[in-house]
């Protein structure tokens, strides 16, 4: 089970027992004795907001000093359509960008590759070369606006291209800030857009982190995604535990090159999921901030307070949203956003209500943004920091959640660590089994989703959908042909062979990628170099 809590009722329909997906069992009433039983200590477990271990909030003043940033995931069609949607969102008060790429781009294919047919620009923006980034970022102040790049296998290419476009537009590249998702381990567990051998792919992430230390000091080179692991079936404790172990894997990759974690640990950010039970989510994030800061301090000797914060996006999960009566998802999204705010999320985003049908329409995307804004502006969430602190209930389950996270971490470490247990299918099998059990729980009516298995109607819903425009593919391919026609072929060949040589020699590939981008090498060409040198990832059978 992995979404809503399980309620055990007696014959009179009274709730007798409540069990959260993480396994925490909730009592009907909490009091001081419960805090004593879990050994709650204000200074050690919470501390003041803005101080170690950051359980209460990363900042002393919470939302008083800064509202959360809202980053709806957006991008579709050609870079021109995406640029228009971005300008609309920025104009409506959105404070950062979060780029969606189409599947061919995520999978390292050019738009004219036969395997890309029918997918160009469908679920995100198509990017073939630097020319496309030039169009997408036209008129965007890259000093001011930070950009999430939701891409993993080829994230190193996109991070290099982001720097290349900023340089072309005359921005100081040491002042730009991007957040490539760049988490290949979760991609293998959860989202499936993987390409290269896993060990080589982890090394590539090490390259991006190492490169950012000097070249892009304001960039967050990896955003660890518990989000997708959770969407694949993880419970709250596993979501956090696996995310932390993945982060440690990347840290270790850079530390073994002779760096000190102090130089970069503060630039690791997170993308985590909000779903299901409100209280469990609040406990998850409060405990999560504490576990992460202690992990950095105790395991890696990181000391600077701002480096010890669990930073990132706490975003409404998609798998909690239902296809039946889709407008109910607007309400679900609002409550997920409330959970994010009560958890002290620095940055948030919501899946839109129509996503069970297609990628969001403009109206649905705006509604998600408005939901987050209404919470911040109208209902009092900026009033005081960590408003649930001190609740007997919340503090007890926060301690219990911390324990669960540590147990899940110990389980994987005891079995040889994260990479090993991804490769051998141990985690994949566990997630698939839990996802299956959750679906069965809904089908049997043990887990309640309103309008799905309780209070159902037979009403047919009409949803206005975002349409895929077949012409985007033709336009994109024509643009790509034009790039191929006008670029310096000799330079392209030279840059690609230098890239291959660097990859083979185990050098940091980032400077070579940037030069290749500036020569208008395509994403497909650069990715093929990696596939050739590193070989493909082989998926374990988890069914």
């Amino acid at each position, binding site marked *: 089970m992995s979404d809503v809590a399980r309620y055990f009722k007696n014959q009179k329909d009274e709730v007798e027992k409540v069990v959260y997906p993480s396994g925490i069992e909730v009592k009907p009433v909490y009091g001081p004795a419960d805090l004593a039983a879990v050994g709650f200590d204000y200074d050690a477990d919470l501390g003041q907001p803005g101080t170690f271990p950051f359980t209460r909030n990363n900042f002393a003043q919470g939302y008083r000093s800064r509202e959360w940033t809202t980053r709806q995931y957006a991008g579709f069609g050609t870079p021109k359509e995406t640029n228009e949607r971005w300008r609309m969102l920025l104009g409506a008060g959105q404070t950062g960008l979060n780029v969606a790429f189409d*599947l*061919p781009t*995520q*999978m390292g*294919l050019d738009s004219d590759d036969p*395997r*890309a*047919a*029918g*997918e160009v620009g*469908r*679920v995100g923006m198509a990017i073939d070369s630097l020319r496309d980034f030039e169009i997408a970022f036209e008129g965007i102040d890259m000093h001011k606006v930070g950009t999430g790049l939701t891409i993993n296998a080829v994230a190193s290419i996109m991070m290099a291209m982001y720097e290349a476009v900023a340089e072309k537009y005359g921005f100081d590249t040491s002042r730009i800030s991007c957040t490539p998702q760049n988490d290949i381990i979760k*991609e293998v567990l959860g*989202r*499936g*857009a*993987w390409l290269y051998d896993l060990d080589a792919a982890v090394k590539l992430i090490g390259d991006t982190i190492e490169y950012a230390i000097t070249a892009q000091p304001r960039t967050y080179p990896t955003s660890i995604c518990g989000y997708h692991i959770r*969407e*694949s*079936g993880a419970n709250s404790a596993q979501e956090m535990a696996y995310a932390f172990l993945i982060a440690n894997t990347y840290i270790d990759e850079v530390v073994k090159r002779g760096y000190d974690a102090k130089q970069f640990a503060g630039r690791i950010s997170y993308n985590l999921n909000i779903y299901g039970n409100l209280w469990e989510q609040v406990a998850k994030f409060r405990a999560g901030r504490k576990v992460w800061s202690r992990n950095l301090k105790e395991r890696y000797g990181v000391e600077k307070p701002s480096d010890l914060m669990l930073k990132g996006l706490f975003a409404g999960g998609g*798998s909690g949203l*239902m*296809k*039946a009566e889709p407008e109910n998802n607007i309400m679900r999204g609002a409550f997920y956003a409330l959970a994010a705010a009560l958890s002290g999320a620095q940055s948030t985003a919501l899946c839109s209500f129509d996503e*069970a*049908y*297609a990628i969001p329409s403009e109206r649905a995307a705006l509604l998600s943004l408005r939901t987050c804004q209404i919470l911040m502006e109208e209902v009092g969430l900026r009033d005081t920091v960590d408003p649930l602190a001190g609740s007997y209930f919340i503090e007890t389950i926060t301690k219990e959640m911390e324990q669960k996270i540590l147990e899940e971490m110990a389980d994987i470490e005891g079995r040889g660590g994260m990479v090993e247990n991804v490769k051998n299918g141990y985690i994949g099998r566990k997630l*698939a*089994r839990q*996802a*299956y059990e959750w*679906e*069965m729980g809904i*089908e049997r009516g043990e887990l309640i989703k309103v309008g*799905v298995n309780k209070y159902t109607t037979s009403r047919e819903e009409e949803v206005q*959908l975002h349409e*895929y425009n077949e012409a985007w593919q033709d336009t994109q391919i024509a643009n790509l042909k034009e790039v191929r026609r006008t670029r310096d072929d000799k330079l392209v060949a030279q840059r690609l062979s230098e890239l291959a040589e660097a990859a083979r020699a185990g050098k940091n590939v980032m400077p070579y990628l940037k030069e290749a981008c500036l020569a208008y090498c395509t994403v497909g060409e650069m990715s093929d170099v990696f596939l050739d040198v590193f070989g493909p990832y082989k*998926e374990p*059978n*988890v*069914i």
Partner: protein
Amino acid sequence: MGDKRIKVVVAKPGLDGHDRGAKVVALALKEAGMEVIYTGLHQSVDSIVNTAIQEDADIIGLSVMTGGHLHICKEVVERLKEEGAGDIKVAVGGVIPSRDIPALKDMGVVGIFPGGTPIDEAIAWMQANVN
């Protein structure tokens, strides 16, 4: 319902990596006593069809989330016919708008399971219509 175990290839065609649904269905069919071969991600139409033929499967269950279901289903059905394996049935699940159902039926897709279909319903359909 036949007397032999239903053999099904659960397949994820194309570039999309959202495989939670496919894995859940694969596990559910297995629990229901069927023999399930899960292809894993990023499969080409050719490799799905070849797997189904080699395994002597009764049915291919395609999982498509990207909106490319019309294109993919058509290719799978046509390739099966070309290979003389038109007796292998084709079903599809995922993000399937209701307006596309007639076109899928016309091209020979026998089972269509849009997101939100109860799994028990899909299992019952398989038991009644395959073999």
